[in-house]
């Protein structure tokens, strides 16, 4: 086994995912199989290889910066239009700090 059930639950916490016990069991098996396949990468000698962090880094125009000018953002009402719980011009969430 590549990882324990405890690790699966820990990763779910990192990812902010509520999982049922059945989901934990299924994901445990799935992740194990996939991670085993990922081990193949260790067969490749990458000693002198630069990681490819950007696809077309050297292509013309893909590494330029735009001018830093202010633009009109979405107005308050538009930005809140899809919010599950808007109120007084804000996104409402459950209380974070108790008095």
């Amino acid at each position, binding site marked *: 086994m590549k990882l324990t059930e405890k690790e699966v639950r820990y990763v779910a916490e990192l990812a902010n995912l509520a999982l049922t016990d059945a989901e934990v069991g299924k994901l445990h098996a799935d992740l194990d199989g996939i991670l085993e396949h990922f081990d193949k990468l260790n067969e490749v000698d990458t000693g002198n290889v630069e990681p490819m962090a950007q696809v*077309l880094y050297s292509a013309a125009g893909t590494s330029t910066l735009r001018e830093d000018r202010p633009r009109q953002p979405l107005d308050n009402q538009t930005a809140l239009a899809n919010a599950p719980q808007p109120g007084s011009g804000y*996104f409402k969430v459950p209380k974070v700090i108790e008095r």
Partner: protein
Amino acid sequence: MTIPSLTIDTVREGLTSRRFSARELAAEALRFAEAENPQTHAYLHFSPDRALAAADRVDRRIARGEDPGALAGVPIAVKDVIVTKGVRTTCGSKLLARYIPPYDATAVERVEEAGGVILGKTNCDEFAMGSSTENSAFGPTRNPVAPDRVPGGSSGGSAAAVAQGTAVVALGSDTGGSVRQPASFCGVVGVTPTYGRVSRYGLTAFASSLDHIGPFARTVKDAAVLLGAVAGRDPHDATSAEAPVPDYSARLDGNVKGLKLGLPLEYLKGLKGETADLLARAVESLKALGCQVREISLPTTDYAIACYYVIATAEASSNLARYDGVRYTSRPAVESFADLYRETRGEGFGAECKRRIMLGTYVLSAGYYDAYYLKAQKVRALIARDFAQAFEQVDAIVAPVSPFPAFRLGEKVDDPVAMYLSDIYTITGSLAGIPCMSVPCGSTSEGLPVGMQILTRHFDETTMFRLAHAFEASRA
């Protein structure tokens, strides 16, 4: 007018000869698409108001004697991961079931500037994660060629709409094969352009270093025209390329004599059955057109699946963090702030998204970053180098798209590793960021379509289209 056999050219001809107006065509196309859609469930929802408004603009341009645009009046379907202002955009997810975007993707804006008429939004795997469109929260799409089979994915709805004739062309998105594989399964043309060729602004992010918007069409020429209309630099996407966009369709002269083509040994090794036979026959046709075909080697191919699934899931886990129940997703009833995140995501995401978020979070977590993510980025550099070296010898690479034709609904949904392994021929090009496309090359004895893949150098979509067009003409 016969909606399913329209092309961009026949639409233009009908408009300029005044046989029909853009509004008449839009109304008839909407009526037809809505009537036929239950057979496939290619569309999730339609946008009649927007379509008719776009058609009216085209009619006004024609009345004023102006150029109505390269896509004038053309009925178009858009994958539901591409945002449309005022038109629901769900990404195939329960989380966004009621999301109405406040802005348009650049590709959508450009389609309408060119006179295109967007009929509606098409089904897809949730957040474009999958190869069958069965991971949609709104039910699967059926393959119009064989209704008991999947259309492929993740852009299965767009491929099915074009194959069924309920759209003339469509936009999809491709991260590891999500345009090319459904194009192959449905028997239409599907194109993944060079990374950065089309702005990703307004394309819901899955894996940002791999995401592309690409066209579907029934002919190579129509795909070339649609790509030409949406391609080019966009200040809203810093990774969009400055490279000038050629007039692709003007270069389709049918002459590919002397073109040097490579067949990757590593791809042919495991290819079996009728898919292998059809590809071999296609290669013979290319030789008959005067192309020089030789075998080439892409030695890092064996590592591409692992490399892709490390990078794609890592980027996905980060990109999908935004669905937190605060700003635009649905939200379950919760007591605490911590539960808000956990429960929103636990209830909202489907199984495949959860699997990928978990994998991506794991490979990026403390202690594993170097072993997985950094290692995969290095292997990715080697895969890109394989292609660069191959293109020193050949002008284009010819390859399969999928190891098998369209499979039955439910056949593979429970075996993630098998599903991931079937992406082998499409993910290599995605990792290298080069242009690739699927063009139909025949059908199996059961009548299931099979596509041939063509891959070319960065920004050389022209050679890809020229070869595909000549091949298409040779089959007609």
